[in-house]
């Protein structure tokens, strides 16, 4: 009886020490998958997921705090990519009426702009060019279409317009849609 307890106790103690050492030796710092989740996000930094940017949202996903269907600009394809990457069940997107989000571009009505620089401060990717009291303009190539500049404009001179269709951006449709 004593022998049994003693043997199991000693064995457990040895194994416990071993595991304790391993947990120190192979300590995981941070969460390495955050960066990889982040690389699947569209990087618009629009905040529509209720986080202040793509990276914070990636952190939240990695910590299992939030569902993977919160990224509206990324749409279904981003959600599916995340589901696949994380091996989670795909969840349908919540709000949007449109399945494939159209890419938008901010356009400043330069005649109405008063040069307040509010939009410059709001732009998460520094895509607006201008100086105080001078009119501003959008660097179309860098604009991610996050719409953050629209709300802050005091004179409502920023409009969102869909990116114009060009030959280089045209895609062959799915055969079932022809």
């Amino acid at each position: 009886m004593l022998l049994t307890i003693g043997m199991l106790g000693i064995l457990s103690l040895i194994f416990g020490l071993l595991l304790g050492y391993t947990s120190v030796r192979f300590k995981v710092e941070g969460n390495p998958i955050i960066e990889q989740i982040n690389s699947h996000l569209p990087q618009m930094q629009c905040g529509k997921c209720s986080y202040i940017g793509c990276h914070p949202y990636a952190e939240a996903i990695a910590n299992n705090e939030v569902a993977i269907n919160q990224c509206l600009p990324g749409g279904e394809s981003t959600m599916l990519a995340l589901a696949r990457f994380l091996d989670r069940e795909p969840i349908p997107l919540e709000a949007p009426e449109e399945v494939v989000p159209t890419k938008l571009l901010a356009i400043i009505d330069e005649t109405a702009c008063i040069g307040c620089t509010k939009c410059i401060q709001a732009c998460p990717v520094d895509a607006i060019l201008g100086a105080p009291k001078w009119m501003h303009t959008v660097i179309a190539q860098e604009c991610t279409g996050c719409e953050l500049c629209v709300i802050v404009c005091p004179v409502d001179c920023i409009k969102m317009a869909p990116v114009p269709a060009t030959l280089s951006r045209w895609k062959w449709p799915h055969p079932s849609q022809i």
Partner: protein
Amino acid sequence: MTEYLFILIGTILTNNFVLVKFLGLCPFISVSTRFETAMGMGLATTFVLTLSAVLSYLTDEYLLVPLQLEFLRTMTFILVIAVVVQFTEMVVHKTSPILYQALGIFLPLIATNCIVLGVALLNVQEQHNFMESAIYGFGAAVGFWLVLVLFAAVRERVALADVPLVFKGAPITLITAGIMSMAFMGFAGLIKV
């Protein structure tokens, strides 16, 4: 030397633990939806199984038998297996976070994979020596890995195919598993173990 080879071929093909002995079916069905995950699971199981077979043998030979505590075998083996699984989990978490994510709950559940305990107990029953135990464990794991990967590859293709509605999902999976099992039965008689 040929003995070891026989054990290896026996465990991998003729007496495959999954498809012939029907052990370890839970991970076989649940971790075979994706090829990459199946590869990872196979690798982790191989590691756990080989190590736990060796450790179980050592515990039995140098602890339980001398102390005449053979009745504690199952309990001790489970302790050993649990430790090895915990150890593996920590290593995988550190070295491959994506695999860790993908394996999810199935990684700790290797502990309850029937093959692991099965191999440890069968090693005692068959009176294998140290080398034989190790090879038996390794062979069982490779056999598991092989069918898991094959099955995952089949399932990836089946997932894309037009399967009749009534067969979609679990039914076609089980039918596929059954056909694979029959195929592996064909190896019987390859060698006598």
